[in-house]
């Protein structure tokens, strides 16, 4: 049984300068497997600079990994050629953060939907193409007759973002990479977009990698979560475990800082122990070391491995070294589907 997508010890290092060796590890030894027969929603969470967008770019094949392999249906994605490459391009789709800048203001929104249909030769004739467009728009909860023929400026941000989802859906993708799809949409419209994404997974069997810094929406939509900090996995597991009982000091900091829209759960009950770090701390050890209130000697030489806390939760922190170690390749075992 081949996996839909397999990341094997993938790292991405950005280097700067010709002679000097300044390099930034944006993603460090990440492994993740998505199975074709069990579509799921995985959240990749982290603050800016945590490597979450790098992960999206790698999975979409926009950039090449420095080390490790990304395998799509049994073939390394850098080795895909010809028809196979087209299939990969069609089956792995993206929805980006900004619903405003992806539209060309000179074309009506059908352009965005009809171009992929033409490029991938999905429709036999105009009528067929139109039906596919209508079907995709209906699937994301829009009224096709209200949308087709309109210009982007005539639509709200929420509508445009749903058209982006529809565009991906037209191509019958297997995997959708949603990079902060709701962060620029009004709070009142977020719910509808999240619902649309969840429907995609349930009714169309699309696996979704939901990339975000917003853990509240992650909790609502995803089954499992991977928390990244400066390219390293800090904590991973089921959303219920990780968000309700965060263990890693970084995850705890993240969860404590969420402004919960709940008048009875206020900031300040837990003090922020970790402060903002200086920009230049790239130690060999745990990336969170400089900000960690529990930093110890042994955190310095090398990053801590994942320690499995329960069936669906593991944290990369020596505070939990009494628990069994977990190799980074086993990350996927932690993620319920």
């Amino acid at each position, binding site marked *: 049984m081949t996996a839909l997508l397999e990341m094997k010890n993938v790292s991405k290092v950005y280097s700067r300068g010709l002679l000097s060796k300044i390099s930034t590890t944006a993603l460090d030894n990440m492994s993740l497997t998505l199975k074709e027969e069990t579509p799921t929603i995985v959240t990749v969470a982290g*603050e*800016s600079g945590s490597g979450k967008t790098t992960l999206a770019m790698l999975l979409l094949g926009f950039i090449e990994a420095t080390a490790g392999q990304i395998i799509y249906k049994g073939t390394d994605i850098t080795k895909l050629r010809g028809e196979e490459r087209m299939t990969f391009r069609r089956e792995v789709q993206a929805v980006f953060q900004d619903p405003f800048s992806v539209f060309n203001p000179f074309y009506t929104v059908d352009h965005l939907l009809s171009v992929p249909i033409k490029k991938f030769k999905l429709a036999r004739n105009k009528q067929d193409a139109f039906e596919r467009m209508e079907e995709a728009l209906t699937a994301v909860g829009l009224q096709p007759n209200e949308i087709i023929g309109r210009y982007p400026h005539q639509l*709200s*941000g*929420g*509508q445009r973002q749903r058209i982006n989802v529809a565009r991906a859906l037209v191509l019958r993708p297997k995997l959708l990479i949603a990079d902060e799809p709701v962060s620029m949409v*009004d*709070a*009142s*419209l*977020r*719910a*509808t977009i*999240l*619902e649309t994404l*969840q429907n995609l997974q349930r009714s169309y069997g699309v696996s979704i990698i939901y990339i975000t*810094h*917003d*853990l*509240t*929406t992650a*909790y*609502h*939509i995803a089954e499992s979560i991977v928390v990244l900090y400066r390219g390293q996995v800090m904590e991973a597991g089921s959303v219920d475990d990780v*968000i*309700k009982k965060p263990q890693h000091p970084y995850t705890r*900091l*993240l969860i*404590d*800082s*969420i*402004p*919960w*829209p*709940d*008048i009875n759960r*206020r*900031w*300040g009950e837990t*003090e*922020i122990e*970790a*402060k*903002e770090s200086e*920009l230049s701390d790239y130690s060999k050890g745990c990336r969170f070391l400089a900000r960690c209130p529990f930093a110890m000697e042994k955190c310095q030489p090398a990053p801590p491995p994942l320690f499995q806390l329960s069936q669906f939760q593991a944290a990369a922190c020596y505070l939990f070294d009494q628990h069994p170690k977990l190799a980074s390749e086993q990350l996927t075992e932690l993620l319920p589907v």
Partner: protein
Amino acid sequence: MDTMLNVAAKESDIGQATKPVLELENLRVSYYTDAGRAIALDGVDLTLMAGEKLGLVGESGSGKSTMALAMMRMIKPPGRIEEGRVIVDDTDLTALSEQDMLRARLSKISYIPQGAMNSLNPVLRVGAQLMDAMKAHVPDMPKDEMQAHCIRSLESVDLKANVFKMFPHELSGGMKQRVCIAIGILLKPKVIIADEPTSALDVVTQRQVMETIDRVQKQIGATVILIGHDMGLMAQFVDKVAVMYTGRFMEISPVRDMFLKPAHPYAQALIRSLPNLENKGVFQGIPGIAPSLLSLPGGCAFHPRCPFVMDICREQRPPFETFQENRQVACYLYTEKARS
């Protein structure tokens, strides 16, 4: 942390203040576009006491930022302040000359814009940008005193004194945002308007920036208006929440009431649409879309989306009235007219 007091303590703070610091009277702003006149702010009245923190929420296009800009008198053509007054600390800002208004900005009322961190000049040191404000407002102050004042301002937002000599690119997003707050509080204004001050920051930094604003606000006793659509931030930060829709206030209530028993149907829908840890997987958006300001529905602007719509809502615009202590709402469900 003591900067985030519980609600009870906050309410007692308000009780001590007696004199309003900020009053808006029938403020009305229109934009004249090719397609017609859009009334972006439709006769808004508001009174805030010293030290109060008001949250202003609403969808994009509901007039939040227009209100902020109108208070700063920074509405540019094709927009125009049609009528109304903005009174800060007994001074009517709308009556001031351009010259006096320049002085009033930053010293009486200051504005921290959305994405403020991008408003710093990349080729000037942070210090020069702070000094700029000092030179414009208190030109007679000796230079070293000015500098000391600027550094104190930076320190009050948790930045080290050496930030004064740094360039913006040497700072992280959160630090830049705090520099902007330092500029905003430099002259101890009575009113601080923060327009989505943390929308570009991640949650940890966001909390630090908001706690900074909170602490500074207490130090200088300023009134804060926080604009945004993140209800979570409102729950954590403000005393009162004002819900705006199509340039009008729909409801103003103390933050506890707003979250626990919102009155206006729009406010109810807004609160219901919020994700929390109890209702996993339940998504409740607000049906329908906000109307265009150029073709507002008659009567109550929310009536096409309202689940409780009555005949009168289609014909007449509900007045914005007090219906409980400290709570105002514009809805016929709560006014005498509906009952008769």
